[in-house]
């Protein structure tokens, strides 16, 4: 069974602080995605990382894929209340002729003004 563990499960910090959330597995993924979900809505893709060691930046968000493509991190600089949400990572694995996503349980992030 392939598992993706996300940590922490819950994080509440003040506006302006930095934070890092983690996504770890013993499995190798061909690619890994980060999504953000707001209450009552479906998840929306933030970024896809494909190459081991890859770093992608999206404004104040920095995403890194581990060298062995088994883990990833999301770092937010100077967090803002608009960053509040559930952050989900999902790793792609090949199943027959298709790729499927294995989902982490999510990190619930609250940024207090």
């Amino acid at each position, binding site marked *: 069974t392939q598992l993706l563990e996300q940590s922490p499960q819950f994080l509440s910090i003040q506006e302006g602080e930095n934070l890092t959330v983690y996504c770890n597995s013993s499995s190798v993924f061909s690619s890994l995605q980060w999504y953000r979900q707001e209450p009552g*809505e479906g*998840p929306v893709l933030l970024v896809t990382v494909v190459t081991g060691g890859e770093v992608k930046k999206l404004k104040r968000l920095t995403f890194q894929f581990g060298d062995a493509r088994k883990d990833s991190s999301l770092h937010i600089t100077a967090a803002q209340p608009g960053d509040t949400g559930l952050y989900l990572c999902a790793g792609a694995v090949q199943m027959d002729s298709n*790729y499927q996503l294995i989902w982490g349980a999510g990190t*619930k992030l609250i940024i207090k003004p």
Partner: protein
Amino acid sequence: SQTIHQWPATLVQPVGSPLSLECTVEGTSNPNLYWYRQAAGRGLQLLFYSVGIGQISSEVPQNLSASRPQDRQFILSSKKLLLSDSGFYLCAWDWGADGDTQYFGPGTRLTVL
């Protein structure tokens, strides 16, 4: 552009009653389709996925079933709901390729009383 619709948005049903949730995709053909269930503030549990008309794979044995009568239509059903069926149900689509974004519908909030 592609859009994905789900209905109803909210549903309150008594234990033992039947269920039918519908998902349709517009603007694409032959997508992979997915049904997920999500507990409050937590990750996604894959229930069913389909790579084509009439092709359904079940990930979790339970009293739910899925059907794909048309290329862009995916239906989640139950003959008799249980209390434990309560949750947020999300439909999603992608093309099943590595690194593909999964696009989610707005979700259905199901409460079984």
